[in-house]
């Protein structure tokens, strides 16, 4: 099974402005566990790519916040989730059929349970 996680940045990721609780290590762990990972943020896409590269994570996508539908079209997955800290994150996620977790829910890395579920 394939799982995709989209991360907002500001207010969600530790390197966001403001900083959020989701760490680079959590994202790295997800990537190494086989998740399709990337960011979906109002920060410039060109900057999103650079910042992931600077942390040594080869994310699968880096898009403007409203492009979740494109992400869904590009990547075939059994589950899609977007993680963010604002209502707009939830709204955009739900519009395109993504599951949504708030940033504070994401710090527990709930997506790892999907791996257990599939065993």
């Amino acid at each position, binding site marked *: 099974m394939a799982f995709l996680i989209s991360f907002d940045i500001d207010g969600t990721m530790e390197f966001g*402005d*403001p900083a959020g609780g989701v760490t680079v290590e959590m994202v790295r762990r997800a990537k190494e566990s086989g998740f399709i990972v990337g960011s979906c943020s109002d920060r410039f896409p060109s*900057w999103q790519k*650079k910042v992931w590269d600077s942390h040594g994570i080869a994310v699968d996508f880096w898009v*403007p916040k409203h492009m979740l539908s494109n992400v869904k079209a590009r990547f075939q997955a059994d589950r899609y989730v977007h993680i963010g800290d604002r209502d707009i994150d939830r709204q955009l996620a739900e519009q395109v059929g993504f599951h949504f977790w708030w940033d504070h829910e994401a710090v527990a890395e709930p997506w790892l349970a999907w791996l257990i579920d599939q065993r």
Partner: protein
Amino acid sequence: MPHPGVPRDWFRNRDGLGLWEGRGKVVATGVGTSPTARRWDEKPETSMGAMTIIAIRKAIADAGISPDEIDGLVLTPDSTTGVSNDPNTPPPPGWEQHFKMASFPQAGITRGDIDWLVQNMPELKNVKFMMNGAICMSVSFVAAAEAVARGLTKTCLVVRGWHNLAGRYYVGVGASALDTASGRGKYASIWGLPACGTTAMVFEEYCRKYGKNHDQMANFVVTQRRNGLMNPDGYYSQHRPEMITVEDYLTARWIAKPANIYDNDLPIMAALAVVFTTPERARDHKQKPVYILSHGQTRPEFPGIAPTLEQWEQSTDRMGRILYEGAGVGPDDLAFENMYDGFTLFHQFHLEGLRFAARGEKRGYALDLYETDIGIEGPNPVSPSGGNNGNGRTRWWNHRDSILQLQGRSPSQIKKKAEIGVSGAPMPDACDALIWSATPPV
């Protein structure tokens, strides 16, 4: 204690007034900019008031004068157009250990206050002339220029701080948080239109009339950020030094189509102070004096609840005429324009009203101009300050940079000779603007 606002007859708001009586009699010298922040962390030492004090002290030091030479203070007390507190909301814990209180608890927090500043800056011993330039620092610049020209103050500080509290700007706060709307607001504000919506509609009209499109804005927005990132005092330089690309801009999320997220400025905390004085006194100041040639004002005159393209074009045309008449110069004399860009999509109305780089055209040329070399190295520097889009939301990066350009020390200094420039804010039909010169008028 209440301080007076600007007398109405000080504003040059119509044609036919001739040369400004104060032309060449008022100069700007010292400039002081505070550090910037995205939002207030509720600590006294990083409050809007604290930042304002920093800016004032820097401006005085930059001018190379003693604080007791300051005998005038013009302040814009409004320190946001977004989230604020009731003036009687108690300050956060620890505030009174840092600052003396003024007549209301939110002074220095969510509202600028002259008495609060004077109480908390004991070095300002001789401030006698005090005036509020409400709503926009552009108004304060005009007020201070008139006050110096009229001999009401010899060395005057012009000051504005911006605060930014936690919460959404305009969304679900203030009047938007209420269950009902009243006054004019009941016609326009209940339909969910975001702040940039009106500008977006007029921009759309512009594009249809002149056969232009939103994509043509890209080089302007990219250049704004480029210019702003040259400014070490700007928010983006200090906190988010990343450059926007054309592709970033063209694929950005719509807020109110055709206004996307990067057509909107980012609210920040920052403060600016500038020293105005007479040319004679400026001889003893450290910085080269920048002369004010004239100023102008427009205010909305439309009958409806939202402006139209025609109204914005008429207003900005009028501003151009008023400024040039008062200054005794014309469009070809401008080395640069630093008009406001709070929403990027109305900048071209200001620019066209001034006929900047018009090459004989009147209207509908600005987006074509944007697609040429409008950078600081080129022949037609558009918004060399980088404006709000390049530095974060204030309404004074443009004014600040105009002074610095003409002093030859802007961080985004234009390469052509900077002799005369213009700056103004905010809206195309509600604007106060000034024409500045590096040399006294002939």
